[in-house]
């Protein structure tokens, strides 16, 4: 009977869905090959200047040089990733903390809101030179810029999530004489988690933008520096290879957030939920 309960609502992974998956993969591959072929052709046949648009083959060769034979790209790659991650984590702490303070204290919310709106409407990238003036040329200004740029979505999503706590559930907690702290920990925070995670997914992409912008303003290492340098030297295959690596970095960060999301907000992922039920039931039967 319990199996029936925990499998309800799960998609049937039948043969039909397998076949659909394969046909979709084939379609994607076909479109990808067509686009690359068109790109290669337009360069080979001289429709576009080789100087402006490097051919896919040239980009792959440049990438191979940078990433494998000289391995020159990796220090830059990891510096940029570190800056983005560090800025993001500080943004989570500060944005989340400010949102919690605003959610729990209406006076604080009232007093803080004009500044939050000002922070939102100001193009935050414009603060980058000022931050560099303050913090110099190391990694700190890039981390600070990444933090400032990703702060807002994390702040606003955390605040929204905390404020949309179910009123009935809140009353139920009150009827159980729960303390404010317990209401926060057991109801408000987990309830806000799906919205907070959505903010974090936006935030991590913005943090990467912030790190690159910081490197454009002033730096000696980082992917932003590399792209700028190659572009100035008109080494566009190398610049494109760097861009490709930034796409990869963005994907890594995004998928890391997806994995975190499926752990922290497991109840929104039906498969994980069913698996968790089964595991807990099994653990209980074993102990009994």
């Amino acid at each position, binding site marked *: *009977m*319990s199996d029936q*309960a*925990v499998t*309800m*609502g799960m998609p049937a992974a039948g043969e039909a869905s397998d076949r659909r998956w394969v046909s979709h993969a084939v379609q994607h591959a076909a479109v990808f090959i067509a686009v690359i072929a068109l790109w290669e052709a337009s360069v080979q046949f001289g429709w576009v200047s080789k100087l402006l648009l490097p051919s896919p083959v040239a980009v792959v060769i440049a990438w191979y040089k940078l990433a494998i034979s000289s391995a020159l790209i990796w220090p830059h790659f990891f510096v940029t990733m570190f800056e983005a991650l560090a800025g993001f984590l500080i943004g989570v702490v500060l944005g989340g903390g400010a949102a919690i303070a605003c959610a729990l204290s209406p006076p604080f919310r009232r007093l803080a809101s004009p500044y939050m709106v000002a922070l939102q409407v100001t193009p935050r990238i414009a603060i980058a030179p000022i931050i560099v003036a303050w913090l110099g040329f190391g990694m700190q200004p890039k981390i600070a810029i990444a933090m400032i740029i990703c702060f807002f979505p994390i702040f606003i999503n955390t605040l929204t999530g905390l404020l949309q706590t*179910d009123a*009935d*559930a809140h*009353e*139920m*907690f*009150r*009827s*159980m*004489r*729960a303390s404010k702290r*317990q209401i926060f920990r*057991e*109801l408000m925070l*987990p*309830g806000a988690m799906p919205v907070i995670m959505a903010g974090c997914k936006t935030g991590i992409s913005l943090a990467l933008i912030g790190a690159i912008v910081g490197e454009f303003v002033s730096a000696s290492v980082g992917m932003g520096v590399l792209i700028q340098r190659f572009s100035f030297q008109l080494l566009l295959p190398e610049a494109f290879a760097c861009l490709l690596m930034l796409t990869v970095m963005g994907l890594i960060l995004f998928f890391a957030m997806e994995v975190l999301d499926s752990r922290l907000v*497991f*109840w929104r992922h*039906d498969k994980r*939920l*069913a698996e*968790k*039920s*089964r595991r*807990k*039931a099994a653990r*209980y039967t074993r102990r009994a």
Partner: protein
Amino acid sequence: MSSVAIEQSGPKAVPRDVVVRADGVEKTFDGGVVALEGASFDVHKGEFVSVLGPSGCGKSTLLRLVAGLIERTGGSLTAYGTEVTAPRADIAMMFQRPTLLPWKTALDNVLLPTLIERRPTKEDRERAIGLLRLTGLTDFEFAYPQHLSGGMQQRVALARLLNAGADLLLLDEPFGALDEFTRERLNLELLRIQREIHATIMFVTHNIAEAVFLSDKVLVMTPRPGRLAAEIDVPFARPRAIELTATPEFNALVLKIRDILGSRS
């Protein structure tokens, strides 16, 4: 029998078996809206009392006042002889929506009142599993709410209510969002459970037949402003079977209440 209950105010000894005593309880909201106008009634130990009326009659307000969730603006309201001023351990409440936490299993949801008091022990867990059995959820202890039907979710909420260990249970249209069949079955189970644990129940509903079938006493309320119009005793013997609803005596009582509601709203 349908007389408006008027208790004389003034200090006097509360009889031992009076669980709730309301004396001119009033609630006016901030905007000046009178939600409840001077309600006086008693609820005795082990009684099943329904609070019946159309929407806007103040029946939910009355229940929230008894729960200590909102403050009254007038009158006196005691439970077990002491004034109700805030939520208390001897009163527990259940809502129309199950309000289960989707990140907790059925068992952990039932354990929530325990968790608020202390760290749940193995014995707490066993008792909670027992309560899930009592509400008909054997084998669903580790299912998450979203894998349970509406009726089953409300059974979990009922088990959680019982786990609060309160003697006075307040139910605000607990099965109102469920289909007719599920609601009828859960009502019967509620009566069975009440017999088993000897609880005192206040039950808000807008369904006249449901109120008569379940209750020892029906508090009939009318809207604009919300007031207690009548207190009806229901004399039918217990345990009651669903066949009771087909008897002339039952229908006469339903009609009588319908008249009170019809003539005054």
